[in-house]
């Protein structure tokens, strides 16, 4: 894995990514030359209508999927140069995930789920690390509960604890609050925000919800597989949910 100094300030660089999906006999372009740079230590929200390619972009950035063309560099690593095993190792060392639902293995307790990537990597992570990570999301007392004994919001927070434990530079989240009520959604967002502000991580979130995007430093709009618009000063914040909703409605109207 090569680390080059000139990319050091960008945690994620996506250049002209193209990705086709086969839908029956038709080929659908999910990404059609999307380019995006994400600065280190920022919170970026990706928005856009269904089918605009935002999830595909996130998956490619996280090393869960590969673009057909174009290059992706995350934390200085060119993902195109990695084979399947290296890509897996890249994921478990440098990226943390929070999905909309189904984040945890039913067979394992919250603590075991939190430790899973570290254990898979063969790291010397123990129960104390798991408890510390769960403490960060306020779930220390639920460590020995199994997923079906936890609420949806608690499950999301366990997933965040898991994403934090391995101290990955980048955390990717796909609709992390999509299945939660307002209060629980806010809690989850607080923890993601803290990952950026307190721990200096880079967070990339896909969302439909302007209220989620309002907590970001930067909002990126996608349409037809490309970046259509982006606003918000890096690190500045000051976005409002209303402003984002208006701007999004304007984009979808065109």
């Amino acid at each position, binding site marked *: 894995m090569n680390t080059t100094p000139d990319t050091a300030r960008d945690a994620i660089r996506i250049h002209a990514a193209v990705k086709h999906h086969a839908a029956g006999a038709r080929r659908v372009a999910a990404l059609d030359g999307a380019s995006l740079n994400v600065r280190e230590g920022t919170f970026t929200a990706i928005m856009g209508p269904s089918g605009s390619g935002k999830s595909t972009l996130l998956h490619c950035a996280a090393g869960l999927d590969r673009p057909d063309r174009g290059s992706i560099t995350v934390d200085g690593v060119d993902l195109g140069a990695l084979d399947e095993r290296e890509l*897996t190792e890249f994921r478990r060392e440098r990226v943390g995930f929070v999905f909309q639902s189904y984040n945890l*293995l039913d067979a394992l307790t919250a603590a075991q789920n939190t430790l899973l990537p570290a254990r898979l990597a063969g790291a010397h992570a123990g129960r104390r690390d798991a408890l510390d990570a769960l403490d960060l999301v306020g779930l220390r007392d639920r460590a020995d509960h199994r997923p079906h004994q936890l609420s949806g919001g608690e499950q999301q927070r366990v997933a965040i604890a898991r994403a934090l434990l391995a101290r990955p530079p980048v955390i990717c989240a796909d609709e992390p609050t999509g299945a939660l009520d307002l209060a629980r959604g806010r809690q989850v967002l607080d923890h993601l925000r803290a990952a950026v502000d307190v721990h200096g991580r880079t967070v990339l979130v896909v969302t439909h919800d302007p209220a989620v995007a309002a907590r970001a430093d930067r909002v990126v709009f996608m349409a037809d597989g490309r970046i259509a618009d982006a606003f918000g000063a890096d690190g500045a914040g000051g976005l409002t949910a209303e402003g984002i909703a208006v701007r999004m409605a304007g984009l979808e109207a065109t």
Partner: protein
Amino acid sequence: MIAFAMVRHRLRAVLGGLVSLALAVALLSASAIVIASSLPTVPPRYERADVLAVPEAAGTRSDGVTVARAVWTRDEADAMAEEIAASDGVAAAVAERRFDVRVMDGERVLGDAADGAFDGAGWASFGLGGSRMLDGGAPSGADQVVLPASYGRSVGDRVTVLTAGAERPMTVSGVTGGEDVLVSDAVADAAATGVSLIGAVSAPGADTAAAGELVQGVLGPGAEVFTGADRSAMEAESGGSGNWAGQQLLALLGVLAVFVSVFAVGTAFAFQVAVRRRELALLRAVGASPGQVRRMLLGEAALVGIAASLAGAALGAPGAVLLGEWMVGHELLSSSWEVRSVAVPVAVAVLIGVATAVAGVLGASRRAAAVAPLEALRPEAPRSETVPRWRLWAAGAAALAGAALAAATTRGDTGEAIGFALGSSLALAAASAVAAPAYLPRLFALVPGRSPLAELLRAEAAAGARRLAATMLPALLISALAVTVLGLTDTFGAAVDEHSRGEIPGEAMVMGEDGGGLTDAALDRTREHAEGEVFSRLSTGVYVDGRWVESVGLRRDAPPEGTVWASPATAARFGWREGDTVELTWRDGTAGRVPVTIGPFPPELELWAELALSHDLAREHDPGTFTIAAGFDPVDAEALSSALADQGARVEATAQVIDDGIAEELRLMRMFAWIILALSLGYAVVSLADTLSLATSARRRDIALLRVNGVHRWQAAALPAAESGLAAAAGLVLGTLLSLPGLFALTVGLRDDFDPRRGPAEVSVHLPWAELGPLFAACLAIGLLAALVPAARTLRRTPASMAAERE
């Protein structure tokens, strides 16, 4: 850690695989214990002999299995035994004389006929055996005999000792715990054909291996010498425990057990992988490499394998006792059988169980490792069920193999043909099982009806080809096995029944009361009461250039006295021509020169011998062997019966003897068939219950959706039941159809297997519908129940709670 948590969490899901594997290992260890406990050991009659020596093998008898050995002349053997006995480190050496014997108390045969151990020997042989003298002592003179205690006589009782050529009134001089009838060495020398074994007892403290080398040195390279545990090789040759049917049954059980465990575990885990795709994808997403996923599944399989194998092993030991007793009861094992060896066979069974669990999961683990991490993000990833190309190739190859085996069935002899026909059916069934995901949805698309349920049935079939295939497999396997095996039995039985008559000449037969043969006196009395000459066979042999030639001594059809009659094949083998005078060695080791005539053998001889001679010539050189049986047309059967009583022989109607023989053979075949079927049915229950309960829990959301949308409870249950019932019916029909090529091929193959004087036999396929019907009904019922039970369990809940449930 992960594998352990997964197995614990998914215990219910792996339960089916666990139970079938445990049962398979129980079966395997039970058969292994029985097999290991019936392995040959040193026969009791040679227990004290440290060295056993026999002449080298010269060929096989007419059964194709029993070894025929070369022969030593008496003088030769005695001289060698004397030389061995005189050597250092040897306490005694015996050139053994053995002969067929029957001990009579008036008109009653003494002794237990169960194991057919009617062996006479000289007193010297007593020193080789391990049995004790219970009462009395050695026979002195020609009119004393030592009997086994099982004969129920005491010292001083009078008995009649029958050998092939003589009848001797004798007094019991001793009773032993052994099995041999022992007479004085002089009497034994007159009664025996030759010396077939030299046994030596080494001096106390002497090295047995050295004694073995010494014996080999004296006897030269023409002898085989056994010491230590190798002496058990003599058990097979002395005809102790060689129960062919029993061995076949045990081997069959073992093979079936391995087959079942590979399939049960393989299908259980293959299905697991399908159901757990999301979970595996999540593991991949959070950083498990493909290798780690593969190893995790293999670890799970090993855990399940170990747990199931240990449970199975615990069941195996009591199972072995039950199995062994059952087999003894059906005369499939020697009545002296007992559990002798447990640890090693159980360990082997456990190892095989774990190995098959891991082997069965290999394919599934490879598929699991190929799961893409992104699949974790799709709630119900609707995987496109395309049929991989390898399936079609494999199906094609199996179908070709099936066709080739069917073709081979028409050509092989009876034994081979039955094996080929079975193989053909199984290969065709395997082909249709492998290809099932390709054609089953198309078959289901033919289901008529415009009701929404029919529509749903067709759509679900199209989307779940692998589930359909897994549901059909047990029914397919059972019907293919049942139709083939029972069909083979009935077809073969009917053919034999119709065409075997007349193979034994004469309306009546004389045979030994105890299953043994006839003395010459019995044969002579039969001739006096017969119309025309008696058809009798004295099974013997001669050696040409040191090679065994299976021979038969005849009364009827005998060649002129002092000549031998060779079949054209035998003549060709040795380059003989009509009228040649050939050199040969007789069964007693003496050399001879006889003129030979050449001509084809009648069918009733063809199976039995390569060379025929007159009864008297055969008897002259083989005095120790009983005549097998005699077929004849009786003049006065009543009178003959009473005349034969003191020879331990009786008269039977030939037709009856043939019927009994066929009935016995069919009884064995049927018993085998039902054992296979019972095991397969058990496998079907476990495997179907497992598949369908997993399938139902995987489709719980769909069922909930149906209920939310207004489908009645019974309709939601009818859907899986209809699917499973249809799949089972399809399997039954397919299995039946695919068995027919093998069966028809068998009828062609059997055509030439009967008396050629009457032209090709008309053989037709017979199917026992009285047995197949209930079996098929049971299969259908199992299929329906296996679908209904989990569906009913799921449907007890309200639609809302099902729909709301997380995965």
